[in-house]
């Protein structure tokens, strides 16, 4: 009786303490926010990987030390609830000042309604670079390594709205991470594999080591997420020359749309030599995968690696911090193995290393229209993406820097993008949602000891041709939506612009963009009308 009473009292005390702490935090926070002498800047993102929050905190601390009347609060939100959280915050009018942007989370209408265009600010110098002679006079946009060229699909710019909405902070690449201790034990102190042939030999050696020592070891940690990072690299590398053949508009920039149109026109299919050759590469990789690997998810494969059951894992450098922190061994990394143009077996359609130079900057923060201190928020963004801020971010997070002249930290050196490479080739998985599903659902035909490219081609070819038509038709529908909306937007741009100011104005640029989209759509429709029917 006495014990149960004590327990009740303890529970009540705990409850009161929790309530008291929460109330105190709420009151003290509220007091700071209504303190007219304190400007509070809140920024939210979903990058919970180790190192990112710490980097933001350190930069915020330095900014606050420079500006004692400012408080910067970081709001990390788990990715699984990000969209719900984002919608609630925006619709409720209580969004933080700065929010992480991504094209798949922030459609144009959301950007237009809730975010402030940043184009004008990006054309001004960043005052926090005033002591950097090479950056001091450059517009903020041009202080970025890739100068934020507004390519379609980037997270920081809206092609339809012709405005920058985000300020990126980092860059990521895909690498093969490896257990240095295990690797040394198995092959000694040799450099990591550079070519696919060397990589395949290494997998073979690891498999032999595992059998001979009776130690259950996988060469490569498996999950659809991780293995498809690897197969993407193989396709990109092994089909570069072929992509140039499909580059009908001669801009040396082969696109998904060009692949699709050529597929529908039957200029290629899975039996085409370069594609079959890429599938053979996947088959060779697949032979080293254990049965049932496709049932594993991303967390499982990370666990396989961290527990020392797999020697290597292919993933984005966003996972680097976590892998290094959670693995009880030294972790190394190397770029995706190349298919050299001189490779006698797989090099016929390759040009050489795949360029990662234009991997666009990520972790973009956008300014919400409801921000109470927009100028202050912009000032914080300027500090965050100054050479000093970006250096701090990169050093603490291990993510790659995006600002010119910022040194890549030693630990991130293997993540440095391949700049002097060639455009990438045709990737089956990138041909749209249905093609991705087809590839992944039938990947088992290219994996294990029964792997067989011929069976894969015979099974998947016809459905892929059908999916090509579906995907191209879907493209015409989504583009139609854009074109339709731009009819209204064009008047919105054109009517208030005086005739003498129209040249090169946003009206002019939108008119050009709409025409380009319209021609592309008509081309796709023409292809669908005139191409042979799918089997």
């Amino acid at each position: 009786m006495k014990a149960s009473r004590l327990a009740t009292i303890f529970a009540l005390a705990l409850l009161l303490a929790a309530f008291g702490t929460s109330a105190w935090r709420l009151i003290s926070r509220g007091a700071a926010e209504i303190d007219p002498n304190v400007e509070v800047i809140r920024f939210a993102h979903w990058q919970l990987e180790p190192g990112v929050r710490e980097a933001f905190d350190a930069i915020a601390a330095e900014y606050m030390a420079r500006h004692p009347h400012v408080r910067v609060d970081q709001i990390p939100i788990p990715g699984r609830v990000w969209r719900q959280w984002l919608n609630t915050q925006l619709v409720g009018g209580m969004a933080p000042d700065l929010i992480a942007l991504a094209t798949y989370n922030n459609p144009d209408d959301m950007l237009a309604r809730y975010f402030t265009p940043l184009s004008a600010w990006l054309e001004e110098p960043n005052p926090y670079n005033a002591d950097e002679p090479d950056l001091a006079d450059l517009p903020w946009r041009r202080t970025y390594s890739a100068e934020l060229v507004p390519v379609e699909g980037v997270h920081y710019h809206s092609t339809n709205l012709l405005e920058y909405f985000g300020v990126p902070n980092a860059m990521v690449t895909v690498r093969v991470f490896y257990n240095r201790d295990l690797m040394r034990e198995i092959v000694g102190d040799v450099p990591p594999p550079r070519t696919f042939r060397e990589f395949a030999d290494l997998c073979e050696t690891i498999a032999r080591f595992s059998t001979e020592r009776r130690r259950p070891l996988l060469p490569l940690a498996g999950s659809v997420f991780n293995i498809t990072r690897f197969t993407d690299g193989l396709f990109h590398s092994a089909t570069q020359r072929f992509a140039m053949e499909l580059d009908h508009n001669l801009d040396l920039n082969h696109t998904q749309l060009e692949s699709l149109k050529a597929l529908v026109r039957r200029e290629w299919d899975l039996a085409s030599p370069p594609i079959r050759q890429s599938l053979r590469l996947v088959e060779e990789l697949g032979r080293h995968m254990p049965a049932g690997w496709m049932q594993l998810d991303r967390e499982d494969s990370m666990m396989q690696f961290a527990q020392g059951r797999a020697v290597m894992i292919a993933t984005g450098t966003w996972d680097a911090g976590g892998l290094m922190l959670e693995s009880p061994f030294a972790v190394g990394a190397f770029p995706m193995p190349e298919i050299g143009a001189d490779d006698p077996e797989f090099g016929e359609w390759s040009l050489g290393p795949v360029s990662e130079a234009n991997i666009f900057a990520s972790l973009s923060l956008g300014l919400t229209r409801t921000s109470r201190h927009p100028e202050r928020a912009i000032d914080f963004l300027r500090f965050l993406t100054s050479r000093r801020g970006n250096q701090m971010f990169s050093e603490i997070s291990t993510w790659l820097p995006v600002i010119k002249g910022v040194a890549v930290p030693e630990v991130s050196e293997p993540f440095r993008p391949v700049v002097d490479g060639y455009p990438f080739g045709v990737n089956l998985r990138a041909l749209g949602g249905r093609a991705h599903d087809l590839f992944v659902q039938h990947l088992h035909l290219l994996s294990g000891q029964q792997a067989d490219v011929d069976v894969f081609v015979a099974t998947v070819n016809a459905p892929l041709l059908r999916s090509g038509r579906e995907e191209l038709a879907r493209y015409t529908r989504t583009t139609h939506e854009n074109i339709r909306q731009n009819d209204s937007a064009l008047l919105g741009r054109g009517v208030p612009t005086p005739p003498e100011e129209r040249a090169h104005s946003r009206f002019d640029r939108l008119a050009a963009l709409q025409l380009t989209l319209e021609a592309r759509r008509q081309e796709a429709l023409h292809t669908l009308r005139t191409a042979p029917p799918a089997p």
Partner: protein
Amino acid sequence: MSRRLLTLLLLACALPLRPVAAPPGATTTEDWGLLAGLMFSEAETAFATAAATGDRWARLGHAAALLNHPPVTPRKINRVAEALRALLAQASDDEPALFARYLLARVAHVHQTTPPAEVEAAYRALLDTAPHVVAQLAATRLAPLLIYEREDLTPTEGLAAAAALIPRADRPDLPELSVAFYRVLAGGALYHRLADERTLAWLRRAAEIGSTDPLTATTVHVQIAELARAQGDEALAAHHYRRFLATAVPTDQRYRLVRERLAELAPPQEPRP
């Protein structure tokens, strides 16, 4: 003279030098901004009041907003067409009327299912409004229709018909649009496997006009160089490969390939004019 008066005088002197972008009629810059920002519901509400007073610009803005007012329905689109026709019935030659005629052609082409011949007629009727900007807009929109939609024309005929629009489409009013127009012509020729000397001339004209969009500007150089190389004009190819290398950001993933293609060409010569 008071300071206030002096300021007013200075302002008055400055006015003719830089025209102020005053919103037309009873509309405001913010109303058109809502339309430009794809905020169609808000724009529809904003224009509705002024449109009810009969202001012609507001009626045009209201029709443009209603065109994409969610949910978009055939009934709303019919209402837009009726509203635009009513605007034209009242007066057919002022500026709101010209924009209304253009929007009506777009409604027929993009928002409703209309036979290509009727759409073409609507666009062609606007070509005579030159030098107004809607003539350039109409000419450029007509080009893809001729190249891809007119099933009664062969690709060669379609391209020739589209190229005949050059005098209306290549205008200094909207140079970015002119560049896009030439690229549409060239794209049509490349798509139909009809690339020839004329295609090269179109792309060269696009490069000559120039675009402020860095990606468009550099891509035109690559296209000219690649096409010139295919046609055996190595001097021209080398010239535009070099222009690409001089203007593209080094992080453009085509950089190395272009460098190597340039190196593969014979020693440089000056391109012919």
